[in-house]
């Protein structure tokens, strides 16, 4: 007789997976990528811990969703398994099931009791490549102006691109560091932005505030910076 209460399959292990979301899958949204990863794990017959609620879903928690159009060198998510699997076995079984554009960089065993991943997130580092035609000197000037401004009010985003929401916010305090330099194929911006539940800086907002909102830019999240777990 099926139990009707919301039982969960016991979660025996927590693994932290760092992966690369490459340019081949740049236009796959965060949610879609999560589903693709889940399916890859199912193909690999990895013992995901499923909830037994109305619709069974595996327990996967990501640090921060990646906006569509961005790539990432280091996305992080925690996965719970119902049967312990060593990190190397996990990586070894999953790798052949991953489509081009998705690469596992590391798998780490994490104590079950550690706080939730999103609550540990503090900052994110982005690299933005601008088209070759823009002179580096101009970009540097724009950066200087930005950094010396005491505040940079911006309209809040509404639902959907280009639609303003109600109210405004100050972008300046969300930018921890910002520098321009010559990259491989044109000027590059490297920035560290605040990334917390209460406030998140977006690199496309910074670009727009610098005056490059309409320029075709390649945005890559290079690193997620977490508060170190106690001890």
């Amino acid at each position, binding site marked *: 007789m*099926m139990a009707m209460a919301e039982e969960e399959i016991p979660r025996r292990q927590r693994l932290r997976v760092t992966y690369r979301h490459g*340019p*081949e*899958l*740049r*236009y*796959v*949204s965060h949610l*879609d*990528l999560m*589903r*693709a990863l*889940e*399916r*890859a*794990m*199912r*193909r690999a017959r990895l013992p995901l811990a*499923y909830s037994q609620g*109305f*619709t*069974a879903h595996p327990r996967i928690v990501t640090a921060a969703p990646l906006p*569509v*159009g961005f790539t990432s060198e280091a996305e992080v998510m925690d996965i719970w398994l119902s049967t312990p699997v060593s990190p190397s076995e996990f990586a070894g079984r999953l790798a052949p*099931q991953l*489509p*081009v*554009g998705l690469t596992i960089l590391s798998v780490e065993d994490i104590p079950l009791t550690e706080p939730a991943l999103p609550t540990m997130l503090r900052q994110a580092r982005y690299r933005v490549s601008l088209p070759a035609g823009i002179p580096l000197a101009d970009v540097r000037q724009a950066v200087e102006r930005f950094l010396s401004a005491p505040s940079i009010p911006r309209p809040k985003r509404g639902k959907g691109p280009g639609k303003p929401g109600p109210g405004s916010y100050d972008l300046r305090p969300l930018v921890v560091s910002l520098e321009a330099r010559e990259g491989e194929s044109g000027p590059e911006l490297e920035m560290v932005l605040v990334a917390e539940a209460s406030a998140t800086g977006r690199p496309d907002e910074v670009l727009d505030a610098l005056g490059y909102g309409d320029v*075709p830019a390649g945005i890559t999240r290079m690193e997620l910076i977490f508060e170190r777990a106690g001890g």
Partner: protein
Amino acid sequence: MLQGMRIAREAMYVSDELLSPILRTVSRPARYVGREWNARYKAWEATSIHMVLAYPDIYDIGMSNLGLQILYELANAIPDVLCDRVYAPWPDMEHAMRQHGIPLYGLESRRSLAQFDIVGFSLPYELDCTNVLNMLDLAGLHPLASERGAHAPLVIAGGSGAFNPEPMADFFDLIVIGDGEEALVDVLDAYRAWREEAGPAAPRHSFLPRAAAIPGVYVPAFYRARYDAHGLLVATEPIHPAAPATVCRRLVNPLPPPPVRPPVPYVNTVHDRAMIEIQRGCTQGCRFCQAGMIYRPVRERSVDEIVRGAEALIANTGYEELGLLSLSSTDHSHIETIVERLVERFREQPVSLSLPSLRVDSFSVELANRIQERRRSGLTFAPEAGSQRLRDTINKKVTLADLLRTAEAAYSSGWHRIKLYFMIGLPTETVEDVMAIGDVVRQVLAVGRDIIGRRAEVAVSVATFVPKPHTPFQWMPLIEESKLEQHIAALKKALRGKGIHLSWHEPISTALEAAISRGDRRLGRVNYRAWQLGARFDAWDEHFQAGAWAQAFAEAGLTLDFYARRPRAPDEVLPWDHIDAGVSKAFLLKEQERALRGEPLSDCRLVCHGCGLRARFQLERCPPAPHGEES
């Protein structure tokens, strides 16, 4: 005007760099990138036949099309064939492509469609026509077959919409009628032989006589339609020695192994799940149903083949849901065993099973219970008509007692909601029949209330009946506007009340669907003109351009009512008479007569009613013996 931005027909590789300025600006850009798990990549230079399967609607819909999955897997299994895919771009993407001069391209190869040898369109639905024309134009190909150059790709079609190919006759070089699995291979074999013998410089039309010789292949250019002074069709006759007087559909028996490695989409598509066809065809003989007529006879897959196929599918895709597809799943002789074995096999993974198309009986409820341990959305049944008289007329073999017993079984096993499908505008329908829908629904709800009180719900979904070719109702007119309004008003009144949810949506394109589905070759001009005037995505209400169609009909000197609302005489020559679906016209006429007398006809698994199939395909047994071992 968008139409004016011509797409150049050069060989182009559509790289990520070329696409990226556009993809930032369109909705759901991942649809145009491909790279899905299981997408097949073959070397262009190493393959000698380059084909692209084209679906005339958006990716979200096309990806769930089983026919395309079957052909994609089958064609790519042939070593020297490269088979790519393309779907209709949504208007925002189309606009951006035209602005940037980007031609329609295959998802895997990223090559412009014009570089392929064969472009194969699936025709699932009558209102996809303008999308076909638009895709050809976006590929830099002229929509009219007669205007395409001698070295343009061969443009072919197949699918359920091909059973009346005439409104599309001007656009395709050849059309495959019936089961595509063997027919497509025959076409590819003939193509290969032609290329070898005639050489790479041979003009496209020199292939057509070979194509016409392939059973099931219809070459429209080899036929001419003649009309009399009243505009009625006199004949569609061959004008080429290679063309047979009638083209008989292909029947594949037994069904070849099912596809087990379909591309898995990133974006959420309409039926985002693994699918396995447990049988093709149906023996119920509902008179309104074209699929039931054109997919005869029923061919079951064995339990072992289904279970093996399901295992491979799940292992290859990682899908969390598996759909067991057929026109009437509970009719499969071994459905219980299939369900038992699959439930057992996938208990741990977990994979949820879905079994659509349930017959109205408690057996179906038992099966549904075994499959869906959690009572999610509700159970769906299709009584189709409210009164027994009308159900007998349309040959839907469901009694009120069946329905109430089924409802009782459902509500007693934990289901809260029952969904019922009905049609409106059926032949001989009266207001009383429509009000009977209300009685039926209220009685079902009462059963639910008795068992689970006020939580019981009935959802009613109603669609307008459109008469289709190759069915006993192919001579019937579409219901008149005023009568439809009257019946809908009566229905809404009859279904008022707590616990009853009516979903009635009349697409504004219904009359057009009715006209094109039973149209003749003259509609080619109308389709083409409507497309030129901007019509596309006609099945989508927000895009349907009534004005373009009205103008197109007017310019052609034709009326929509001539095709949609004119009752056809039994001896009238029909535009699809030269296409033989295996079911004889005499049988269909007899069925129409029985319908008008309100006489149902039994399931033909029990006794053969002589529809013509056995003679046409020399079947000793019908349905043919199930394939392989059973367990």
